[in-house]
């Protein structure tokens, strides 16, 4: 059964990249516990608009946990405190009447703030451009079943491929490392026979791109794994490290 709760929100406001930014406090009244977190922000924004103030900018789109657009740090945790959940899937039934909620953008050197809760995550696209694909042109594929893939291997590849590219792993990491994101793609393709021909080149190139984009290194804090809305395991980081080591010693691409 839904209930109505009252909340105090401390939200990060920042007019643009050059503005230093600050927290502003808002009262959110009459919030139904059936609302999603973003619907709660919608309610706050509607009120701001009618009061003649600027609403809080935040990225969002599918609102069902798959597009990876949304995300903010809620009470210190990217996407909030619930495991395996994007911000749009976090419902207000997980908060209590009278709670104070602190909402800030994802913070990382590679993710500059654009406005309020909106950050620039284009670095993740640059990582993918460095090798997050199999080089196959349209029209040149062999018949699909000529290449059997053991089902457990396909399942493990799918576990990694489930990454939605939200960037929460980077925001959660004390080093602002993109290792979980990068390893998910490296691992997905390294596990499949289709990805093997380019595996060495891919891992070396993507790791170089991580450094170039300003992401930090992994020092095994495991915050990324805890925060990942798709619960992607750091096993994939181990696989990336193995792939990188192998490529670094043995591959002509090194």
């Amino acid at each position, binding site marked *: 059964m839904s209930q109505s709760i009252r909340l105090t929100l401390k939200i990060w406001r920042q007019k643009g990249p050059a503005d230093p930014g600050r927290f502003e406090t808002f009262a959110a009244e009459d919030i139904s516990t*059936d609302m999603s977190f973003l619907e709660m922000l919608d309610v706050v924004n509607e009120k701001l608009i009618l009061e003649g103030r600027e609403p809080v900018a935040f990225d969002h789109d599918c609102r*069902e946990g798959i597009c990876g657009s949304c995300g903010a740090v809620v009470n210190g945790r990217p996407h909030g405190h619930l495991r*395996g959940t994007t911000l749009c899937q976090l*419902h207000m039934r997980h908060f209590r009447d009278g709670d104070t909620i602190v909402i800030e953008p994802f913070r990382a050197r590679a993710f500059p703030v654009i406005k309020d809760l909106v950050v620039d995550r284009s670095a993740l696209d640059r990582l993918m451009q460095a090798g997050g694909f199999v080089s*196959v042109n*349209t029209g040149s594929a062999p018949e699909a079943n000529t290449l059997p893939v053991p089902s457990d291997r396909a399942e493990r590849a*799918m576990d990694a*491929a489930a990454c939605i590219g939200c960037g929460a792993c980077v925001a959660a990491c004390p080093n602002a490392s993109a290792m979980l994101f990068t390893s998910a793609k490296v691992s997905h393709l390294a596990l499949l026979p289709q990805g093997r021909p380019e595996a060495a080149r891919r891992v070396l190139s993507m790791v170089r791109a991580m450094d170039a984009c300003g992401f930090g290194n992994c020092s095994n804090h495991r915050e990324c794994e805890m925060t990942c809305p798709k619960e992607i395991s750091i096993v994939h980081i181990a696989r990336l490290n193995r792939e990188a080591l192998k490529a670094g010693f043995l591959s002509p691409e090194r």
Partner: protein
Amino acid sequence: MRLDAKIPGGPLPQKWDRHRFELKLVNPANKRKFDILVVGTGLAGASASASLGELGYNVKTFCIHDSPRRAHSIAAQGGINAAKNYPNDGDSIWRLFYDTVKGGDFRAREANVYRLAQISNAIIDHCVAQGVPFAREYGGLLANRSFGGAQLSRTFYARGQTGQQLLLGAYGALMRQVAAGRVRLFPRREILDIVVVHGKARGVVARNLLNGEIECHEGHAVVLATGGYGNAYYLSTNAKASNVTAAFRAYKRGAAFANPCFTQIHPTCIPVHGTYQSKLTLMSESLRNDGRVWVPKRAGDKRPPHQIPEAERDYFLERKYPSFGNLVPRDVASRNVKEQCDQGKGVGETGLAVYLDFADAIRRDGRAVIERKYGNLFQMYEKITGDDPYETPMMIYPAVHYTMGGLWVDYNLMSTLEGLFVLGEANFSDHGANRLGASALMQGLADGYFIIPYTLGGYLAGTSLEPVSASDPAFAATAREAEERIRRLLEVNGRRTVDELHRELGMVLWNHCGMSRTNEGLAKARARVQELREEFWHNVRVPGAGRDLNQSLEKAGRVADFMEFAELMILDALARQESCGGHFNEAYQTEENEARRDDERYCHVAAWEFAGLEREPVRHEEPLVFEHVPLTQRSYK
């Protein structure tokens, strides 16, 4: 306006081969001399951009999000059809073609649908080669499941995230072309208009969503892959940014809009639970492989589901349609769900829901099997509703999901505006009046990977295109109009928010131009939409500035277009005095309450031509000829 579908001659199975041979070619060294503008990066846009880049064209690709990977194709859950016949259960290209034409209630072009079925197998090959992690059998070969409107298993899937995996495949291919310098990517851009020079589409006007700057981009052809217009209803399963603006602007510049009243209401969505609700969430049709749909037999039975004994439950789809059971097509399932709820048998707090029950499947196959097949969907359901579907049946209700209508295109996917190609959900071509499940992914990728690379080349090689530059007066004029519109939106400074007005528009459409339509209701809705539009332009409040990241302004522009477009949907519904597929006019139904077509008068595509402000658009007809699938009353009994 002449509607020439340009369907090639010859026997159906050879039309596409023959056409590909007849299309002129652009020699490889000349391809780099052509600039192609692709709008949208969903399955259709990303696959088109990547494939055109691979061929050597200069591609500029625009996307509304921060990254192409966020396009709404990402949310497609259940699967993608292909006629591989791996399960050996009797499938063929012909049967996929037949099922799709029949599923669409005979309002799609035979030649287009046949081509789609032919291409379907190459899509699976290509996606597997890209590393899309499709589900596999223990022997390592690809697995299939069933979807609505088919009596066999031809749907390939990657858990409940098939759209995501296919889009990431296409996105990877696109990123590869960006790295190779063949595609230039323009993220966070919204296309506000199409620029027409000497009767041909030669550019776009875009707004940079980060700083509000208006940009002009010129090219030799424009490819729109901007998705559907389901968000006209406000509440739909579409993502929040999905909109009709680019397609509607193209319509105003001369591209005919086909069958705008053909909208798909998907039967299995999580029911509405509050007035603040911002969107609806689909529960994949694949769930109907194992889930059984039921309501209590007695109207007003408020007992919790586990207290209702088997004998007092009505599995109404299985009862009414014994051969297809729970897997009847979406339009049929949705209407039946509505019918049960209208009779007072609906369940849940609002009475606007039916059960989708997995108890039998869990007993039969065990929880682990069900979890492997649908785990992420069950989890999504649990997060939203707080109920655990392993323990208690899901509650579902129909919601707006897809739009079969779209910009009219010929066999080459070119609209009536020369040089403007339209792909994926944004065009109207393949699904008739009702799309079958797992066919949208197939169509988007067929258009992008395997059709546009040929037909666009044919256009470029066969057309004389004088050089244009963004300094051409047509660009400045179009950009000025876009700026002027933004100025007007910001100036109103009224008392109602964009969302408030959009919600109201959505209710009007849902009540009168939704699952069930009447002539009186449509007429009333039309008047109401006109009033709302009037109110919008006098009473909307859009805070902030034009030259800034301004999400309220973005929404306002889209809703302003929905306010106009909604009337076109209603006009089209009023003009089509029959029922077919998703368009159900209560005056035209069989004794068993199924849609009754009128093939004498309406066996055609309706394509609307913009005739200027304050004037009724002109309705054109493209007759549909069925030579291979005989016109019959659809039956899924």
